[in-house]
């Protein structure tokens, strides 16, 4: 199981390097999809049940879909992938940097690092992180109200930003 965690961590690194090297947004969104999927797997390996689900559904299924639609705004005839020379230089620099950082900082680590910390030995339905989120709905109701008001405010902000004519955020259109 610790080897699976190792493979998933490597997948996280590969996806992050793929996004950070700034290819065309089509490919960067692909890297972010990979990072979300692998991150969901990492959270499952460490005992979560609800938080990985939220990650997959809300992040990947909600926000990434928005980014995928908006990638049409950055359409170009020859998008830069990771095989392009300028992007490859960034990839090489980041891989070198990450490799050096890991070698220096993780040169010697002791102890059982990949162990899955799970406080009970059996399969449970109601796991810890689900109870934490339930606590947010129970005693943390006001923060949910605040979050909802913030989201409503963001809706109006977005509507004002893309409104054209004379009083919106776009003056020339």
């Amino acid at each position, binding site marked *: 199981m610790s080897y699976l965690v190792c493979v998933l961590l490597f997948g996280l690194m590969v996806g992050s390097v793929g996004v950070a090297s*700034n290819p065309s*947004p089509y490919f960067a969104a692909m890297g972010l999809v990979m990072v979300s999927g692998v991150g969901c797997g990492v959270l499952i390996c460490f005992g979560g049940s609800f938080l990985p689900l*939220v990650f997959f559904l809300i*992040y990947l299924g909600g926000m990434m879909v928005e980014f995928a639609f908006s990638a049409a705004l950055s359409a170009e005839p020859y998008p830069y992938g990771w095989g392009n020379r300028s992007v490859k230089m960034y990839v090489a620099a980041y891989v070198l940097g990450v490799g050096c950082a890991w070698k220096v900082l993780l040169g010697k680590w002791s102890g059982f690092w990949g162990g899955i910390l799970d406080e009970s030995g059996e399969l449970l339905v109601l796991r810890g992180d689900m109870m934490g*989120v339930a606590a947010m709905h129970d005693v943390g109701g006001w923060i949910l109200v605040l979050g909802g008001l913030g989201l409503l405010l963001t809706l109006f902000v977005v509507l004002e930003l*893309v409104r*054209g004519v004379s009083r919106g955020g776009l003056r020339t259109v």
Partner: protein
Amino acid sequence: MTPIQMTFSTMFLLGLMGLTFHRTHLLSALLCLETLMLSLFLATSLWALQLSTINIACVPMLLLAFSACEASSGLALVVATAGTHGSDHMQNLNLLQC
């Protein structure tokens, strides 16, 4: 530092460097910002899971909600840029240049 902590710290630094050394598109800079948010979600979720502090599990949910606000504002800016400048290339945003 354990490898999992090293991983999400490195993810954060990689997203930050990708946002700093942005190249052509505004949208790919926004995707690096999403990588930052993703690494913070992983970090806070692993905090809740590994240290068995159950109540911290609400922090990743709220982080996701507010990061959705930020992502939608960024995308609205990309739409506005594409409306006025025709594309989201960063070199077109040069009104303040002398």
